[in-house]
């Protein structure tokens, strides 16, 4: 057999493209990531751990965890329900629903926050009613949770809709002819078929819920120890020139991002094999 070798000129373009991509990734992703850890540790390990002794730091971490713990499960339920009805049934207004699910992706998080301020603020009838009954939503934890749910709503549904549409309804139909009710169909047939996609959606949803800044910033009011989530607290620290503390807290979010990436790769690998 003749040895076929590609001329060196035709290897230039692929090498150039791959090289550029790596440079881009190094410059825009890896370098900032390293600098976070470098900044956090540049006054020594003791200074790094000192940043977590602050009570406001702990309350910010706690609030972020609480927010994610409420927002993520709710969006799992909403997301699975929305994906289920969009992928498996035909109904009037389906395309409108799909557009609405995408809405949080389409609008700026700041606008999303403002929408809640406008809806529940003191100037509206709803807002004054809430005030009269001493229910606080804006500049309080419920507002933060609401804004987070809104911003992270599409992740689970968006992940599941194409997957469920591709799988079709044949297995569900088969299950129904075998006598299964809706509950059995979901738990025994649909859920096992979507479990990896669902986990993937949950991980992305969680990462965004913990990292959300814009929408939460508008509704929070930045009350230290009360309505500061981790991203907000980092911003407050940074603005007050507490660089080491700001970057130390930031390493937690960066670590979350890294864990998310690893988990995502594992799931993608599992889906394939």
């Amino acid at each position, binding site marked *: 057999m003749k040895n076929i070798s590609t001329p060196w000129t035709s290897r230039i373009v692929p090498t150039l493209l791959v090289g550029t991509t790596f440079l881009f990734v190094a410059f825009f992703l890896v370098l900032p990531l390293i600098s976070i850890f470098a900044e956090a540790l540049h006054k020594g390990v003791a200074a790094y751990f000192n940043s977590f002794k602050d009570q406001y730091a702990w309350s910010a971490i706690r609030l972020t965890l609480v927010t994610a713990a409420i927002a993520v499960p709710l969006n799992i339920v909403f997301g699975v329900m929305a994906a289920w009805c969009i992928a498996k049934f035909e109904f009037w207004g389906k395309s409108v629903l799909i557009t609405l699910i995408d809405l949080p992706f389409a609008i700026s998080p700041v606008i999303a926050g403002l929408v809640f301020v406008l809806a529940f603020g003191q100037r509206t009838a709803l807002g004054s009613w809430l005030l009269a009954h001493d229910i606080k939503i804006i500049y309080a934890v419920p507002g933060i949770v609401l804004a987070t749910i809104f911003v992270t709503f599409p992740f689970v549904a968006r992940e599941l809709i194409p997957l469920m549409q591709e799988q079709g309804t044949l*297995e569900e*139909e*088969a299950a*129904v002819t*075998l*006598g299964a009710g809706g509950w059995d169909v979901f738990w025994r047939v649909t859920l096992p*078929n979507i479990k990896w996609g669902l986990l993937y959606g949950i991980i992305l949803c969680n990462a965004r819920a913990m990292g959300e800044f814009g929408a939460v910033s508008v509704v929070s009011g930045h009350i230290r120890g009360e309505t500061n989530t981790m991203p907000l607290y980092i911003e407050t620290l940074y603005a007050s020139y507490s660089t080491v503390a700001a970057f130390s807290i930031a390493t937690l979010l960066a670590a979350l991002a890294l864990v998310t990436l690893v988990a995502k790769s594992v799931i993608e690998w599992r889906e394939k094999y």
Partner: protein
Amino acid sequence: MGIEVKNINKRFGKFTALDNISLKIPDGELVALLGPSGSGKTTLLRIIAGLEEFEAGYNSDILFKNQSVVGNRIAERRVGFVFQHYALFRHQTVFENIAFGLRVRRGVNRISRAEIKRRVDELIHLIQLDGMESRYPDQLSGGQRQRVALARALAIEPKFLLLDEPFGALDARVRQNLRRWLRRLHDEIKLTSVFVTHDQEEALELADRVIVMNAGHIEQEGTPVEVFHHPKSAFVMDFLGSVNLFHGRVVAGQIVFDQSTDVKQEKFFVRPHEIELVPTDPQNVGFPAKIRRIQLAGSIAKIELSDHSEKEIFVEMSHEKYLLHKFKVGDTVSVVPTNTVVFEEDYVI
């Protein structure tokens, strides 16, 4: 009566899938719904199972053993449905797939784990997949998957078995074997079954009765022999095997084939095996044609001819008869139909 369907209509948008269909399927029979794609056969099967809604019209009804099942949920109808592409649960093993219908039983119908195992093992033995119970669907061949799908449907002890193109996705050899196996199985368990197919050979070989469908209505019902030998329409004759269309006139009690398509010409339908080829034609009962191709690989000899207007004619004969005349490609012979069928209505092949 096993299954009775009365005045069923179904439209998809402006397309009429089923046009006032009524049919009866007697107990214990294996019935084929035969038709080209788009004839409504699968839709009809899905409506019987309850997987598809139909348009309620005057006196429309579906009866199982003389009881109306309209309004019953799919699960209550208890029909075993075998899907064209198997629709096996991909994340469940062979055993779990077959056990599914037994495991989802609730209340008084609940059965014990041991009983489930006993029944599933029995079914696995029936479909000859012993030792494969812990395999997943993607580790099985097409024919094996189809048998698992069948066992899964049988596990719920259905009143009827409905099969949608059961052999459609299999290669020719596996199809042959599975077909015979299904027929033997049916003779053994005598479960009233309906299967949808577009393959006339499959319908004629397998079924007790054939229902030929076309464009949302039933063209003809009958035993395989009836529909094959006494087709009621040109469509049925054409669909149940190849057919030649000759033009001619009846003169003094004899057909004169002149193959021109003038006015007042009659259309004669002739099966390829009901044509004689003769080297000479002194009585002038046929018409001349030239042999274009001879195909001898197979149980019969197939000969393609063309007449003066380049119209193709297909002839089939036994190898003995072929050897008698020693036909060669390029020979001009006389085509003599031995049996012709004439239909009233106009149908274009």
